[in-house]
């Protein structure tokens, strides 16, 4: 066996080990775009809260308010903004991942992506349901903290199945979520920071490290 052959053999093994167990088709660009959508959403939420048609804002410094004081039409508008940001981010992520997967010769729906999704879904569903419970119980001040923390946990647990950088993003989101719980009333700003700014930074790192 020639030395070149041996090297090829080892390179192919290493490549397969990575390609089979890690979803390496996440696109950095989609992270940047998701961050931008989140910032746009945060601005929209800010306008709704302070200048909206149905604005009679809650007293934000209180992390818990009575249910009868809820301004439901405002809450629906905010939920629509959040859902729009989520949908746009997911769609962008999916389309760009599909493109990258084709280039990397990795199936978009394979073992690695299944593992990635399952490991993300468990904390996300738990956190999402907890956020709904908090909303229904009047603890609105903790919602941004809960979503940030559980999103961070989801990222950390998913990071075994993709780039290691996802783990650092997750840890930062958790840290931010804990801060948000400590200073209730600034949820929107923490959201903008966690889902907007951090995603843009993460996306740029992935883009420059793996995409070019």
């Amino acid at each position, binding site marked *: *066996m020639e*030395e070149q052959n*041996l*090297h090829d*053999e080892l390179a192919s093994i290493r490549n*397969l080990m990575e390609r*089979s*167990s890690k979803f390496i088709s996440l696109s950095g660009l989609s992270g940047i775009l998701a961050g931008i959508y989140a910032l746009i959403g945060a601005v929209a939420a800010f306008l709704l809260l302070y200048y909206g048609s149905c604005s009679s804002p809650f007293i934000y410094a209180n992390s818990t308010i009575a249910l009868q004081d809820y301004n439901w039409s405002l809450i629906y508008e905010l939920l629509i903004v959040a859902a729009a940001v989520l949908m746009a981010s997911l769609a962008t992520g999916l389309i760009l991942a599909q493109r990258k997967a084709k280039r990397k010769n990795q199936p978009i729906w394979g073992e690695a992506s299944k593992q990635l999704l399952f490991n993300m879904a468990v904390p996300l569903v738990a956190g999402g349901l907890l956020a709904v419970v908090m909303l229904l119980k009047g603890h609105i001040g903790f919602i941004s903290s809960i979503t940030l923390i559980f999103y961070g946990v989801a990222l950390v647990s998913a990071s075994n199945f993709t780039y290691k950088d996802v783990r650092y993003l997750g840890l930062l989101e958790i840290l931010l979520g804990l801060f948000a719980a400590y200073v209730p009333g600034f949820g929107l700003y923490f959201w903008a920071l966690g889902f907007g700014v951090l995603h843009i930074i993460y996306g740029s790192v992935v883009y420059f490290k793996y995409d070019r």
Partner: protein
Amino acid sequence: MKIPFEKLDKAFENRVRLQIMSVLVVNERYDFNSLKELLDVTDGNLASHLKGLEKEEYVKVNKTFLGRKPNTSYEATEKGKTAFKAHLDALEALIKQQRTN
């Protein structure tokens, strides 16, 4: 100096077998179709190499049903993992030796 080719595992002489093994050591289990897609080989080719590895007791087959569809997945046995590691060590030793020669 004599190059220790005999330390290379005969079961891994074929490239596809080595590739199958490298997938199975980093994943708890892998199903037939995903493996086929990943390695870009034909059904018959993959099946025969899996049979070969099975005969060496390097891989174990799990047949389950996903609803009505049969789903065949494979996992590496301890014996298989050890053999794979030894094979890699041998490859490494070969490279080192060729460097010093």
